[in-house]
């Protein structure tokens, strides 16, 4: 073989090896394990007032609402600058707002908690960056510098006047160190719980007592027990403090120390999380308690009452807690 040809034998395969094929198009179906919150907002200055339109929901719900929200904004009529009117898309229901809120517009069923809020504030609230950063905090996002907010802001010339329209996605938790939203509705009451749940059959919902946001009464013959859900701030005390309070006040038992607590406490798996769960049977009452920490508060799920009623409904109590789903 001639040497020159030998080199060709080496070079040609190398050249061929050097050609990379195009990576193929991939099509796949994958599970969705996390759904974020999406926020539509609009800031519309009119006369002596700044009008705020705000709609928050899950990504899935909001994906369908982008066009209706834009259409709603286009329909706003400020013939009376203090009482704007608009054309509601089909299925949207308007009601008078409370406190600082001018109107609340329910989108779909009320249980879905998908509400468009309309609030009017004075000219002191005209800073767009401040308002958008306040909204970012409400969906768990950090504040941005004015320059970095630019991509999120859409300047729109509505028939009612120029407006800033905002579209953002966030994890949904309230960011640390941020105050409550300006013009926000009052703290959720029993009719506006921040979580969904399924009450077991036979549980009777009754008026809330003391700090509870949800209360049920359960019966086993003439034996009764009460289920309460309470929300406390971050300074709600340690698990030991709360367990000792339950032992002392409800069960009629002496207090215990950390070592004993570690032996008594169990875990209750709820979805992908698990929470501290105690079962205290004392001479006064039997208590089942679940402590559910949230980013800004702690929820206490408790069943307290006659030991027979608690025993009978223990499984129902666990099922109830497992059914709870916070809205982000």
């Amino acid at each position, binding site marked *: 073989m001639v040497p020159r040809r030998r080199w060709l034998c080496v070079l040609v395969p190398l050249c061929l090896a050097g050609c990379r094929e195009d990576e193929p198009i991939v099509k796949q179906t994958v599970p969705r394990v996390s759904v974020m919150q999406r926020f539509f907002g609009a800031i519309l200055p009119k006369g002596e007032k700044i009008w705020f339109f705000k709609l928050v929901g899950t990504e899935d719900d909001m994906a369908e609402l982008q066009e209706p929200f834009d259409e709603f904004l286009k329909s706003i009529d400020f013939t009376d600058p203090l009482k704007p009117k608009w054309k509601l898309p089909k299925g949207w229901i308007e009601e008078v707002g409370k406190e600082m809120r001018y109107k609340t517009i329910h989108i779909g069923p009320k249980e879905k908690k998908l509400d468009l809020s309309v609030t009017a504030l004075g000219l002191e609230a005209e800073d767009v960056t401040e308002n958008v950063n306040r909204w970012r905090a409400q969906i768990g996002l950090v504040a941005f510098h004015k320059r970095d907010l630019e991509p999120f802001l859409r300047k729109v010339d509505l028939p009612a006047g120029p407006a800033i329209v905002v579209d953002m996605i966030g994890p949904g*938790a309230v960011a640390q160190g941020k105050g409550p939203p300006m013009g926000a509705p009052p703290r959720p009451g029993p009719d506006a719980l921040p979580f969904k749940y399924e009450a077991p059959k036979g549980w009777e919902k009754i008026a809330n007592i003391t700090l509870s946001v949800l209360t049920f009464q359960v019966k086993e013959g003439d034996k009764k027990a009460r289920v309460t859900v309470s929300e406390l701030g971050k300074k709600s005390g340690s698990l030991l403090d709360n367990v000792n309070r339950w032992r002392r006040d409800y069960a009629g038992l002496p207090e215990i120390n950390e070592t004993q607590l570690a032996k008594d406490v169990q875990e209750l798996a709820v979805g992908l999380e698990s929470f501290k769960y105690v079962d205290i049977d004392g001479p006064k009452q039997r208590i089942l308690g679940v402590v559910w920490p949230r980013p800004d508060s702690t929820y206490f799920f408790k069943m307290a009452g006659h030991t027979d009623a608690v025993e009978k409904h223990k499984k129902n109590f666990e099922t109830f807690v497992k059914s709870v789903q916070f809205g982000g």
Partner: protein
Amino acid sequence: MSSTATQPGPAPASLKEADMKGALVPGNKPRAGLAWRILQICASLRVTVVLFVLSFLLVFWGTWAQRDESIWAVVNSYFRWWFVWIPLKPLTLELIDLPVYIPFPGGWTIGSLLMINLLAAHAVRFKLTWKRSGIILLHSGIVLMMLGEFVAAFQIEGRMSIPEGHSSNFIESDRTMELALVRRLNDKEQEEILISGSRLRQHDGKPIVDPQLPFDVEVVRYLVNSDLGPADLVSQPNLATVGIGLRQVAVEKSETTGVDPTQAVEIASAYVNLKRKDTGESLGTYLVSAWFSYLLMPPETVTVDGKKYDISLRNKRAYKPYTIHLTRFTHDKYPGTEIPKNYQSDVRLVDPTTGENRLVKIYMNNPLRYEGETFYQASLYPMGKGTVLQVVRNPGWLMPYFSTAMVTLGMLVHFGIMLVNFVNRRLA
């Protein structure tokens, strides 16, 4: 094959002897035949020397190329590939900068040939004796080291970002991008159609056509590294005709080269013209940018034949059968300062395929190891409260340890035997 094929040109006597040694080792009968001749060529010490020289040149030019290209671009084109076209600029140490490229064997080619050379040398020249045990052990260590580099090419390195209270089931690559068309099927599943970033980068003006794509994708421009600016302030022409690209323009930034001291992450953007498959009608030119993914901006939506697709340029994802849920993230600082003291992620690992369901605390020097992957606490979730975990999967992570141990042991054995022989000779 002629004799010139095996020993071209004059060669030093020692090399010739070495080449022929295999055939002349006492006890080895001289063998004939094509296979044996080929083996002898492969085992040639000349080949070894040539391959070493080629290695030195490749490393030299590969290092020089990092003045213009990023480390990973050079690693992938020079070292982890078979063949490379080296530009004239690094070849001439930047004396000539012309668009001329010289073909050169890549790292995989040289590495494979060196491996063949080494194994052939053992088949031809070396005998399995105690006297040679050190050399054999040493060479086995080198073979393992070279195999380790091949395995390392399949290493996965990425990150998993999880906001508090949320879950994740995918790892994002740090360096590779993909254009994702995502359609939500129901609450639990979504369909994804993916075009790799390398394919977007190699665009030639022709649309990407594939039966799996709902529309044809013409890459108008791809920017490996970019910044965003308001359309009314940026002076360059805006290529976008719809969507957020009307308000924001992607501006090209130079790639992060291997010698850049900041080693800033490159953030890609692209302008893509989407065309209907049936009529070729344009659905609009969209700006897609990794910036939008990082900033958590809602994706652009394109509707075709009643199906809605979210279109985004994102870091390439590798989905896992397990889910990691972040229950709590703590970020302790030294009192009175902003200096981080400790990051900790309390996560729940759930794998329906194995029944795994456990709580894990991930913090510095306490990673989670699961299914061959290691999750290290890396950073804070940049957009809110949450965590960023660095994920590494390196199936060959033990190979460098074993190989260097074998080389060290081989040298000790070899020089030990030599020393004993020397002492024995002196005593005799």
